[in-house]
């Protein structure tokens, strides 16, 4: 589904990603871990198409298409979704109106007619129950005055509504208490399916107790320095990142 080859990217002239290689197939759950400043969020930003990131080398193929050639909105329409670490607030725009606009933009892109209001509301209700999202928040202005946890839960609700092929969760666990974390994780788990893939970016192993990954990648200094299974996450939890950093530096000095 997603193939990242030798991806290099910079922001403000500073090299952030230094040759990322990653293959994600349908149905897989990949976790990206790593210490602060290792390039985790930069990777998601580059994939989603944030403007201030410049790709200097490498390629990204998403469902057979060159992702890097596409505008951010076309990437979204092709089925790439990012749950933001810091979801923005848009005053005066209701959550539902926003979602309906987004959904219909995606449908139009695929040559489908706009969804009827009745059908849309049915879908809304179904997904809201599926991911246990507070119905009162649906008619409120998008994220305005939402608590940190509510914003993150709204990201998962949107994920459920827009039904993408690949979802990137960018530190969705940050700022969540344990109860909110459980609910968010439960929502994500319900959305897992054989034709969907996930890339979960997280700092801590905690989230991975609830969302069990197929693969764990450790990002350090702009590269994936180690890949393993969920056991690797546990090992990191236990030993921290320093041993990995040392390993990398040893390799470099050889």
């Amino acid at each position, binding site marked *: 589904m997603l193939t990242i080859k030798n991806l290099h990217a910079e922001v403000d002239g500073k090299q952030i990603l230094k040759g990322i290689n990653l293959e994600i197939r349908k149905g897989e759950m990949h976790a990206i871990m790593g210490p602060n400043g290792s390039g985790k969020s930069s990777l998601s930003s580059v994939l989603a*198409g944030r403007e201030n990131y410049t790709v200097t080398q490498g390629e990204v193929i998403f469902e057979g298409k060159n992702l890097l050639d596409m505008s951010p*909105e076309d990437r979204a329409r092709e089925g790439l979704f*990012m749950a933001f670490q810091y979801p923005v607030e848009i005053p*005066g*725009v209701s959550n539902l109106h926003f979602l309906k606009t*987004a959904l219909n933009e995606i449908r139009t892109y695929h040559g489908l007619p706009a969804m009827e209001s009745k059908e849309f509301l049915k879908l809304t209700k179904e997904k809201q129950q599926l991911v246990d999202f507070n119905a009162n928040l649906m008619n409120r202005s998008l994220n305005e005055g939402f608590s940190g946890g509510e914003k993150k839960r709204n990201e998962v609700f*949107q994920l459920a509504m827009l039904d993408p092929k690949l979802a990137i969760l960018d530190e969705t666990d940050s700022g969540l208490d344990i109860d909110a974390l459980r609910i968010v994780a439960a929502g994500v788990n319900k959305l897992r399916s054989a034709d969907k893939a996930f890339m979960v970016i997280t700092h801590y192993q905690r989230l991975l107790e609830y969302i069990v990954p197929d693969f764990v990648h450790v990002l350090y200094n702009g590269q994936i320095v180690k890949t393993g299974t969920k056991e690797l996450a546990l090992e990191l939890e236990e030993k921290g990142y320093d041993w990995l950093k040392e390993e990398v530096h040893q390799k470099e000095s050889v």
Partner: protein
Amino acid sequence: MRNSNEIIDDIANREYEFGFTTDIEMEMAPVGLNEDTIRFISAKKEEPEWMLEWRLKGYQAFKKMQFPKWQHFEMPELDLQKLSYYAAPKKKKQLNSLDEVDPELLATFEKLGIPINEQKALAGVAVDVVFDSVSVATTFKEKLNELGIIFCSFGEAVRTHPDLVKKYLGTVVPHSDNIFAALNAAVFSDGSFVYIPKGVRCPMELSTYFRINAENTGQFERTLIIADDNSYVSYLEGCTAPKRDENQLHAAVVELIAMDHSEIKYSTVQNWYPGDKDGNGGIYNFVTKRGICKGNSSKISWTQVETGSAITWKYPSVILQGDDAEGEFYSVAVTRNKQIADTGTKIYHLGRNTRSRIISKGISAGHSDNTYRGLVQVGPRAANARNFTQCDSLLIGDRCGAHTFPYIESRNSTATVEHEATTSKIGEDQIFYLNQRGIDTEKAVALIVNGYAQEVLNQLPMEFAVEARKLLSITLEGSVG
């Protein structure tokens, strides 16, 4: 007293020596403004003597007045002696087909979903099919008549309801109020007149759109609306489609009078030609709008969505004279390219327990300048007066300006006056967030701006609000990027 025929004869004779050009199709007063021009206009309109006298008083006031200097923009050079003040019937240059119309204008019509015949009329193409609205207007008028509601052109009201016009004309905006109001008093072309009798709730939104003779009243329009005791009326002015108009200066006057327990709601969507990208051409919209809540517990509410004109310069105001009276002002002003808006409101709290609410949303893009200017004045008798003002500015890009000049004058220690103001920019983060959900940048801006203006748009009658939303989106197309 001379009758109008004599005046016409008189003028017709003089016409020659002063070089009036006359032909069958069109009669125009010579360029310039003097008493003769005003007599000519009044005679052409077959007005009674008192109306002429009033015009002349306006002209006398006008002569003594200067252009104001306090506005927050550079006043364009306006030579009022170079304008022609009468052309009847005012003919726009007729185009033969839509092919001759500016394609950009057509594209906008398309986006607004305006029917083809209406497109033609707005663009100045000869239309040979009769509008549906004519028949609508007839049934409409019958219904209003039954209720005793008077809704007609100003000129018609002068003829058919002279007592009402005489009683109220100039009582809210005097002929000497300001230079543009004085000019309007002297040369006003036509406009609307509304009278809602006691205890009547007008069952439909009154709009110039439904009035058959609404055309060609543009440049110096004069509107007078009176809501008698316990009545209600909602009045819509304007049109969301961009109007082709060859007059550069628009100096209209609107007067509203609300008696005991009555309510007037006045909504405007203004989309006059704003000039091109470099600021060439475009309308100067210098309008005086004021209402008086004369009666106790009366209410006047102004709602305006201003997206057009090269310069928009107006302050729809409310005088809260009656006790427990209420005034509201809701405004969205959008400027782009080199447009200028200096707009806001004035609320005068005179009566006890009077309340007012001001919500102003300025949106600036391009190289434009957008100013909110407002006055809240509380008089010594206005015990327990309350005002809340919220004044927000939204900036798109980094070359536009937003300015706020709030004036508060309180002479009563029991009054509460609140002013809140914010300035924000459409954030790249907001746009990227929406992009990431599949919404392109133009739609994203439209969504954000509509959300921002929501509180004001909610005040508009429903159909108007839908159009206004579309208009906001279209106006800001291409402003980001």
